[in-house]
């Protein structure tokens, strides 16, 4: 069974016809040749497929495309204008926050979404005072990014990279 839908991906509008079983991840990669989000586990356990869906970090492998008709998708590739790097991507380069790079687009999208959540004052489970302000220390960053696995184990540098950008985000 098929469905017609539209998606705006990294600022580009697309209309497509997909089998109802198609996930947002497969629509991006297989139908639109947008290969920045990666397929890791395809079960919602690794975070490699993370994109910003209508502005919020989301697992594209667990999202059915047909249920997101009209959505705006931002991948790591579309975070900054062509030829420029988003501050989080630049920080990943500066801090050597990856080895093989497969998880990196998901890590970057997740970090960008997380920084917005922290700026909005959202607590995490390691926030001492649930009603108080958020300070993005290393424990907070690790907890808030725990949905993104890195099998090369670049976590220490990922936290460094996000901490650098996080320190410039409104507390």
């Amino acid at each position, binding site marked *: *069974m098929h469905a017609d839908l539209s998606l705006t991906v990294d600022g580009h509008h697309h209309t497509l016809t997909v089998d*109802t079983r198609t996930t947002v991840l497969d629509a991006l990669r297989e139908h639109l040749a947008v290969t920045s989000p990666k397929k890791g586990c*395809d*079960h919602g356990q690794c975070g490699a497929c993370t994109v910003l869906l209508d502005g919020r970090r989301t697992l594209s492998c*667990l999202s*059915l495309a047909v249920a997101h008709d009209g959505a705006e998708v931002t991948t790591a590739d579309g975070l900054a204008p062509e030829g420029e790097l988003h501050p989080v991507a630049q920080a990943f380069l500066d801090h050597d926050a990856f080895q093989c790079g497969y998880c990196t687009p998901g890590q970057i999208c997740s970090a960008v*979404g997380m920084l917005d959540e922290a700026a909005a004052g959202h607590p995490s489970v390691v926030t001492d005072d*649930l009603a108080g302000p958020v300070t993005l220390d290393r424990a907070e960053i690790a907890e808030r*990014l*725990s949905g993104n696995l890195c099998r090369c184990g670049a976590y220490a540098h990922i936290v460094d990279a996000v901490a650098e950008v996080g320190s410039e985000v409104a507390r």
Partner: protein
Amino acid sequence: MRPFAYERPDDAAGAVATVTADPDAVFLAGGTNLVDHLRLGLATPGTLVDVTGLTSTEITDLPDGSLRVGAGVRNADLAADERVRTRYPALAQALLAGASGQLRNMATTGGNLLQRTRCVYFQDLTTPCNKRAPGSGCSALDGWARHHAVLGATHEPAGVACVATHPSDMAVALVALDAQVRVLGTDGERTVPIGDLHRLPGDDPSRDTVLAHGELITAVDLPPSPIAAHSTYRKVRDRASYAFALVSVAAALDVADDGTIRDARVALGGVAHRPWRATATEQSLVGAPATEDTFRAAARAELVDARPVESPRGGTAFKLPLVTATLLATLRDLTARTAATTTREDPA
């Protein structure tokens, strides 16, 4: 994956009518559990009825002081709500202890309640499982049992045995907070106390809840409760984040100035087929002094009927001391906080 039709009715009543009339249809909300089940071949519906946008995504104050949480409210938004953080901290903590940031942005209040067990055998189509394939047996009984039950499970007869646990953190907090679940059916709306929503396996482990096919959760009401503001959630797991609970405790205590426990709410996660209201613990606590001895006796009272899985490949006997230790730590913490609050509020 079996092909399916996708429908998006105009309103919640239309969704209920569609699913009620079609045994092969299921509701789709955030999809975090269902889409995985479609891929695993565990769920094979002919039609997905998307209820996104059909139930409320608002959190509203009711005239009686309750807080109404629309079934479509995302877990992340519920945890971030100021009223939840200050009036029902155990709920905010439980939500934040569950899943990951991405999943909390997707998962809904209604869907969280209806997520299914993460028992590895339930999710593995090649193994016997009475919940997935009634009558086939329970592979966990002599298999890899670590996340399995110690309370309220069915160990025999073999054809109905089930030692699965309910995976939700949120639901454990809601049970301790006496939430009311609003459910829409073809005959109208009814209210189910959260403690009655989920079933024990009994002789039919295939059914997780008391809801009929086609009934839709539309909202969850949190009743006003002064004790809820002094609630907390503590979760023990195999890694520090992004893992299901081995054991969790949602609790609230009201301790009088003389140290007597006036009121208590306690629910346990990771121990049973449903979020477990620890009524024996509560009864044991109320009227007693808030001391270590009282807490130990309260833990013993709840575990007197416990029966762990004793599997050659790892059982759940380790959960008995873990429940006691987690409960003690939680009650100690709550008592210390109550004392601190009392001191601060002292006019002297």
